[in-house]
């Protein structure tokens, strides 16, 4: 027999109260302009309207583990076209934050987080690129956290104070 998800009004309330923008959740009247506008949804099973409806109903168990939550490129096309001015991208960030807290995060994303804790940047920085910078007449290291110990210590401290390092140690997949 098909399993029917139980609506969870507490979850809906949590989404609405979580952050600037997500208080527009209940304004959605399910017209589907978002789904029709979505460049990712053209190619995948991601359905923006459905995700918003599930959030309205508080179907937490259906939302948290779903891959579809991570198929949005945050392009804001749906937000621009929404006739009810639902801040869909803000709601998506809130839902992703909740999923991560439950332990749902991709290894590839964790690697980016680890690189942030190491050099304060999203991408690694290798010898070949340093050589190219010098050859072009730029300093070997850019004047950022890269190669600046004091700045990097500060940057890492901010992440740790927010609990980001611990957050990444959770994880289901």
């Amino acid at each position: 027999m098909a399993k029917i998800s139980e609506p969870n009004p507490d979850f809906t309330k949590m989404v609405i109260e979580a952050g600037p923008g997500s208080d527009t959740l209940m304004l959605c009247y399910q017209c589907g302009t978002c789904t029709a506008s979505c460049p990712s949804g053209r190619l995948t099973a991601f359905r923006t309207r459905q995700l918003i409806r599930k959030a309205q109903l508080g179907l937490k168990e259906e939302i948290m583990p779903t891959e579809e939550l991570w198929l949005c490129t945050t392009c804001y096309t749906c937000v621009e076209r929404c006739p009810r001015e639902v801040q869909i991208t803000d709601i998506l960030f809130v839902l992703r934050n909740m999923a991560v807290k439950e332990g749902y995060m991709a290894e590839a994303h964790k690697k980016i987080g680890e690189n942030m804790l190491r050099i304060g940047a999203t991408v690694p920085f290798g010898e070949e690129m340093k050589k190219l910078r010098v050859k072009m007449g730029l300093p070997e290291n850019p004047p950022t956290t890269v190669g600046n110990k004091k700045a990097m210590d500060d940057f890492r401290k901010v992440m740790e104070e927010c609990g980001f390092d611990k957050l990444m140690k959770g994880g289901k997949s």
Partner: protein
Amino acid sequence: MPQKFAFFLGCVAPLRYPGIELATREIFKSMGVELTELEGAGCCPAPGVIRSFDQTTWLALAARNLALAEAQKTDIMTICNGCYGSMFEANHILQHHPKELKKVNDVLGKIGMKYDGTIKVRHFAEVLYKDIGMEKIKAQVKTPLNYTVGVHYGCHFVKPTRVKQLDDPEKPKILDELVEVTGAKSINYRDKMMCCGAGGGVRSRDAATALRMTEEKLKNLKAVNVQMIVDVCPFCHLQYDRSQKDLPGYNIPVVHLSQLYGMAFGLPREKLGLEAHETKFNL
């Protein structure tokens, strides 16, 4: 107009396409606008992964960058839609929600910093268009460029318009005008405002889906025979540049607007860092 800006480098430009960094430094120098160094700035931080993981960390790291510029009493200028989007929106939240500002300042206090919300976050293309202006840019063009160009706005330059209010989200014109002032021709193409596919953490988590979106864009660009793609975001730049080797039949060079201006302003080609591009620039 302000004669100086705190130059925010981000990650992808200095660590993958240093030509974008150098070309920006050179073109602003030639137009008489000072770019100060934002010593010790970190990642914006990346909206796709960091904001998706934890909005408090995202806000606090953005506030650290904003506070570095505030200490110089200088607005921030970015060369990347991602950095612009992240820091602009974080700044908007911090300036409109005292509770969030306090929370962030409690964290910044641990490293002896504080943000008061007094500066603006600017995108270099917006600075070119609104502060410097077409006349002054045109005066710098030494080699008019006779190229046909497909302009890629990306997502976070004009959107979300509710807070940015720069240009129309469906039919903007700023970048087309900025490209055409060099003598190049901006060609319209199908789904011009569509995303490159990389954002929101999709490229790192699901490269195949990102690539399919990029292929859709490239197909539409190829259909109108553009000679190059011009972008204003090193991350879109990377997505277009590095995806084409995986897509047989595509070989459209990709340049950032700063590099296009470098060519038009007569900078030596070696200062444009084109050798870092995977899709070779052969024009």
